[in-house]
């Protein structure tokens, strides 16, 4: 030892002291730290957050624009039993059956007396039922917790919200969109440890959605139609406040959703929209300076288009002014207007509105538009009144918004949109003067044209009707119609644009055997507007809004 420390005693002692001092210092520091910790307790900032338990990645809630839950994850318990551990089978059955009336006592007895270690009694109990059964305290019974997706409002906005499969993977609608953005993105929204949970906010307003769907449902029943669709969109922000497609389904039980007629018709299908498409042709002719409201078109003779003829549904056989072409919905006049603009120019104009491309929104069901491969003279003539070109109804609504809102095209969305982002999104596609003329024509058509039945008193509705013949077996059929009303309100400064389409409405006695749009789609749209306008905060007005007034109003947007 002594050798180790080397030389003489005093040296060794001083080294010993040095080491001792070192130890004292170190332990002193440690002791002081412990004393500090002891005095201060455990700092709350040090809590390590526990990992989210469970075997399933959580999904974000989906809420409507007012925060009402449309889809959420709920824990549900399933009741199982271990028959070997059930002491008194009779008592167990007697206790259980009053709470689970759908269980058959005889079958249950057979199950419980079998020599098994595990049997399911009832899957997916509600939390309340679970509590009740738990309180019964029957030996040999237990619960397994599972998480499942619940849609509290059932079929409301089902086509937008979509649904998930048993493994909680989105199969349609916004649910699928969330998955496409990445499971982790979806999970991050749902992270229960965040102070603020971030549900997915839709642009849908469930009240408007319900009113629209109900009116469509009534129309489908009344006119014995195959289906119907409706879209209501904010004309300025592009937010879809309601979109419905009938027949619909309940996402809590989505087995119906896969049937062919349950498709989402507003983006998942393309249609030849018919005369409602004329609005686009008119806007083009105004914007290119080819026509104005005083222009005249000779509609006395049908137009030759290849091997067939283009004629009018309400033939006037005279020279019509532009507003008359619109209100009588003259195919001849509109086709002539498109031809005057020019065939390639027409094609370019439609391309500019995105009619040739699949419109992509958050709802993943998006059908690709159909059009002839070669854009010919006949194509221009037929496309001018909405035949020979099939588009998603939402595409037409988005275009219609631009026609009436002052010429700004805003891409439609199913998610709530921050108004601050609008200037970056909107694209000026038409002149303000074109838009004013279109508002005039829309309103004129309701005041004295084919859409008189769309009058929702006080809300200044305007719009264009369309009765499209459907192709059945390769030919246009006079008996199979797709009727639409494309409109907006209030017409002097449109806040909302909408479309109502009824698929194959039948003529009725009360419609005097007619089945054109003016007799079914138009009155349905009128009822829809009368119901939704108060919900959307539009004040009814007592003073009349005339078409001429809209034309004079230079200030309007």
């Amino acid at each position, binding site marked *: 030892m002594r050798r180790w420390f080397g030389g003489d005693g005093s040296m060794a002692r001083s080294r010993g002291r040095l080491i001792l001092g070192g130890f004292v210092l170190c332990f002193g520091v440690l002791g002081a730290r412990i004393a500090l910790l002891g005095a201060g307790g455990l700092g709350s900032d040090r809590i390590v957050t526990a990992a989210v338990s469970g075997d399933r990645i959580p999904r974000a809630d989906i809420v409507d624009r007012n925060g009402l839950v449309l889809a959420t994850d709920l824990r549900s318990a399933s009741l199982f039993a271990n028959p070997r551990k059930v002491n008194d089978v009779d008592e167990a059955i007697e206790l259980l059956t009053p709470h689970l009336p759908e269980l058959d006592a005889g079958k249950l007895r057979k199950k419980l007396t079998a020599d098994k270690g595990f049997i399911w009694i009832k899957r997916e109990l509600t939390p309340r039922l679970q509590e009740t059964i738990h309180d019964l305290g029957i030996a040999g019974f237990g619960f397994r917790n599972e998480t499942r997706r619940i849609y509290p409002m059932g079929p409301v906005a089902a086509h937008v919200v979509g649904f998930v499969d048993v493994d909680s993977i989105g199969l349609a609608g916004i649910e699928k969109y969330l998955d496409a953005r990445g499971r982790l993105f979806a999970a991050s929204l749902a992270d229960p440890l965040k102070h603020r949970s971030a549900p997915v906010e839709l642009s849908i307003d469930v009240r408007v959605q319900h009113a629209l769907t109900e009116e469509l449902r009534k129309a489908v029943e009344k006119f014995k139609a195959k289906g119907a669709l409706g879209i209501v969109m904010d004309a300025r922000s592009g937010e879809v406040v309601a979109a419905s497609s009938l027949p619909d389904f309940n996402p809590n039980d989505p087995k119906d959703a896969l049937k062919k007629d349950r498709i989402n018709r507003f983006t998942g299908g393309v249609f030849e929209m018919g005369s409602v498409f004329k609005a686009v042709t008119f806007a083009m002719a105004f914007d290119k300076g080819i026509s104005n409201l005083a222009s005249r078109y000779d509609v006395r003779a049908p137009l030759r288009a290849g091997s067939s003829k283009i004629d009018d549904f309400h033939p006037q056989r005279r020279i019509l002014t532009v507003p008359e072409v619109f209100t009588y919905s003259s195919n001849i006049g509109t086709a002539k207007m498109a031809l005057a603009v020019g065939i390639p120019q027409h094609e370019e104009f439609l391309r500019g509105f995105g009619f040739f491309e699949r419109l992509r929104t958050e709802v993943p069901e998006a059908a690709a538009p159909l059009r002839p491969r070669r854009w010919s003279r006949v194509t221009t003539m037929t496309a001018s009144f909405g035949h020979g070109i099939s588009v998603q109804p939402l595409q037409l609504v988005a275009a219609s918004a631009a026609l009436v809102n002052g010429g700004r095209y805003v891409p439609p969305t199913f998610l709530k949109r921050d108004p601050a982002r609008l200037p970056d999104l909107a694209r000026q596609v038409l002149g303000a003067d074109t838009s004013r003329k279109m508002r005039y024509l829309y309103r004129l058509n309701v005041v004295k044209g084919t859409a008189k039945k769309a009058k929702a008193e*006080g809300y200044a509705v305007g719009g264009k009707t369309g009765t499209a013949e459907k192709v059945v077996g390769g030919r246009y059929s006079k008996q199979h119609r797709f009727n639409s009303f494309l409109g907006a309100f209030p017409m002097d400064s449109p806040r909302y644009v909408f479309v109502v389409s009824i698929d194959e409405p039948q003529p009725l006695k009360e419609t005097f055997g007619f089945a054109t749009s003016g007799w079914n789609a138009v009155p349905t749209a009128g009822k829809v507007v009368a119901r939704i306008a108060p919900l959307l905060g539009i004040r009814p007005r007592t003073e009349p809004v005339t078409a001429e007034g809209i034309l004079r109003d230079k200030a309007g947007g």
Partner: protein
Amino acid sequence: MIRVLNICLVIAVLAVALQVYGLEHESRDAGKRLTKLHEEIAEERETIRRLRAEWSYLNTPARLEKLAARYLAHEPEDVARVVPDGQIGEQVPQLQKAEPEEQAADPISEMLSGTETAVSGAPVEGAAAADPIGDILKGMDQ
């Protein structure tokens, strides 16, 4: 001198050890409490989710429509009943004339008697659903 110092240090070590032992105990307790609190928070969150889902179900427009039709005397807004600005003075006398008739009907008492039946547990469809989540799930494949 060294001996005294050693004794002091031994005492200090014992004291510190005791303190460490106490702290460890405390931290273990805190850990348990933390887990329990986390469980409770998760439970509460689950309850909040459930209640929000139930609230949403109870707010289903179709249901509200039915209840409103039954208990409220309200009617859809009609532009014919909207009085333009500046004409209120002329319109009010007419409105007053209409009032006695309405009082005779006494919608408020009807409403109250209606709510009573609802509160006393009479089977009012959808009004006092005992188990909304159950209703949502109803009709699903079992």
